[in-house]
């Protein structure tokens, strides 16, 4: 064992959305403490939503996250519609899936190419990477733009789209507006295939975790907006039963609440979970691409989440093309709402994983109470479990390489700390007492 005192302090983890902190303590080569904390300043969304009209929820909660605003708009609209007994079906439902496809493509590609790939290829950033791999970075940027273009057309703009409302949309796109997206999406199908080949060729640290994968599951489709909450370890509950099965805890080291499954503990949400729980709902092209990339129906190595993001990107491109092909402009952009007092639950699959919203409403539809459980908060404990394993496997590495692999393992989760509350501050403290 190395002797002498080693302290590593990395003040930020870069290439994540937000401000967090990690602290690792190693005493005589043994891991004593690992924690991943979130120091994003609290913004108190759940508090200032109280008293606001139900119709404000999609626009206000979108501002929780600039990377996945659609997720917030979807979970909140579904929760409100649940409370009012409204259901959005047919082409309006398909348009919701379409805009979500756009967000998955934009967010997954941002993460794969600009945030995560530089780890695997050994660059500080995608801009540094572009000096040697300009074609790769350009492929990523163009594919990301194809996702943003969908969000733009359906939602009005990429960040904080303006067209989503409780009950549907303010204006639905014309068939022609959507068809204009097709040529670039056809290019994107090939680009997504190329992306899967590229990222599956990276070298991955060996690691398998016995994750409890939690995601939505829908009988007919790969889940975006609807379904039951299931896990690979037997959980199968309605969205409205959330609080009976999940627990949020407030711990001192974090401005985000930690989630657990009652009586079981940590769980994993995000692409790996969705994929494991819904593999058979993927298109044949996606399943083939997975097989070719060496990924089975269940992938337990969190470092390979980048490959699964590629597969989900391909799925989102194919699904977008299917929806556009079958699109017929609906007669009205929204459904009627019968506003009354009640409680609403909504869950949808943000790019980073399951996002649950719950609202209590008064008879005028004003919010009495709001509860929002973002994916990164749910993954906090699992991220810490992973860090422990990676640390154990990598203790012999010099400090700078150890820091990098630990950061990389946090980035496996594409953590959005703005969501979970943001600044990742990584500290590795190694104390040698003898």
């Amino acid at each position, binding site marked *: 064992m190395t002797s002498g005192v080693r302290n590593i302090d990395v003040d930020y983890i*870069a*290439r994540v959305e937000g401000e967090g902190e990690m602290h690792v303590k190693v005493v005589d080569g043994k891991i004593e403490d690992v924690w991943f904390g979130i120091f994003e300043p*609290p913004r*108190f969304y759940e508090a200032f939503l109280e008293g606001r009209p139900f119709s404000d929820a999609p626009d206000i909660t979108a501002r929780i996250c600039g990377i996945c605003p659609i997720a917030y708009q979807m979970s909140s609209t579904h929760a409100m519609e649940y409370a009012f007994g409204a259901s959005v079906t047919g082409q309006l439902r398909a348009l919701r899936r379409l805009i979500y496809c756009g967000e998955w493509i934009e967010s997954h590609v941002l993460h794969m190419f600009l945030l995560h790939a530089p780890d695997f290829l050994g660059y*500080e950033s995608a801009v540094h990477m572009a000096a040697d791999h300009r074609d790769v970075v350009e492929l990523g940027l163009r594919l990301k733009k194809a996702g943003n273009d969908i969000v733009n057309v359906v939602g009005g703009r990429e*960040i*904080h789209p303006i067209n989503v409302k409780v009950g549907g949309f303010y204006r639905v796109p014309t068939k022609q507006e959507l068809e204009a997206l097709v040529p670039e999406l056809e290019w994107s199908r090939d680009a997504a295939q190329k992306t899967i080949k590229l990222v599956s060729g990276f070298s991955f640290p060996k690691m398998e975790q016995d994750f409890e994968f939690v995601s939505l599951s829908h009988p007919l489709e790969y889940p975006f907006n609807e379904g039951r909450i299931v896990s690979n370890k037997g959980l199968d509950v309605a969205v409205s039963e959330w609080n009976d099965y999940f627990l949020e805890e407030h711990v001192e080291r974090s401005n985000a609440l930690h989630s657990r499954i009652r009586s079981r503990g940590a769980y994993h949400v995000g692409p790996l979970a969705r994929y494991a729980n819904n593999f058979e709902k993927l298109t044949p092209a996606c399943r083939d691409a997975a097989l070719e990339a060496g990924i089975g129906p269940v992938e337990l190595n969190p470092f390979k989440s980048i490959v699964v993001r590629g597969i989900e990107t391909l799925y989102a491109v194919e699904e977008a093309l299917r929806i556009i092909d079958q699109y017929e402009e609906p007669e009205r952009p929204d459904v009627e709402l019968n506003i009354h007092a009640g409680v609403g639950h909504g869950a949808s699959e943000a790019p980073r994983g399951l996002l649950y919203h719950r609202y209590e409403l008064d008879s005028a539809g004003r919010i009495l109470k709001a509860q929002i459980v973002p994916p990164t908060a749910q993954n906090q404990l699992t991220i810490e479990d992973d860090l422990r394993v990676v640390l154990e496997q990598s203790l012999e590495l010099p400090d700078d390489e150890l820091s990098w692999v630990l950061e990389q393992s946090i980035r496996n989760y594409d953590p959005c700390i703005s969501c979970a509350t943001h600044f990742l501050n990584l500290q590795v403290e190694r104390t040698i007492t003898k």
Partner: protein
Amino acid sequence: MALPKLAVYKFASCDGCQLSLLDVEDLLLDIAGVVHIANFPEASREVVDGPYDITLVEGSITTPHDAERIHEIRRESKFLVTIGACATAGGIQALKNWGDTDAFTRTVYANPEYIDTLKTSTPIKNHVEVNFELRGCPIDKMALVEVVSAFIQGRRPNIPEYSVCIECKRRGTPCVMVSHGTPCLGPVTQAGCGALCPSYNRGCYGCFGPMESPNTEMLAAAWQRLGVSNRGLVDAFRGFNAYAEPFRITGDHYEALAEARGE
């Protein structure tokens, strides 16, 4: 010649405005060719020390630590630009300025003693000198490119200060208030989004904050003629730019009226 050094800093915010820099997909690599992206943690592990020629600041000041940190950033920045509604007006989280922060903390967190937060969410200009403010929730990404380009070229950025109404006229969108009675904040809101909401049959909800000389009184009267209550006016002005002065005063005025009439 060395490229100008650019830094990006974040305070309380959603990351959306700094993400705009990565959302200019067609131009990102070109931008990286004319400025040295020296400190941008969301995009790079590399941190090149200041001083920086141009610093973009996202987010509002909500913690004692951040109130200190912004002064350090000002000291190492030659030209400081605030990006977005949080940095220029306090953001949606400024709604807590009207609430009881202790009660807010208890609402969200089981152990309020772990939370260190100020009672207010305030814009950057309340703490340090700001050289240019770019509005929007989110900012328009091409406006950000304009600000960076103008800085490099040593000119003033060409950013409009007139209202959203001008943008509607330019794109030929019929007025949503006149044509279908939809309440719209466009007449008092600064342009910048391209009059997006009216083009989607929706009233403007004020992402870019108050325009240069907003007549909020007249607009509120017009909204009331469309049947909007005092409480509804409070909701409208207390949005993403709630703490910007003209919106703040208007929101407070109608709140007092709503309370007086027991709405």
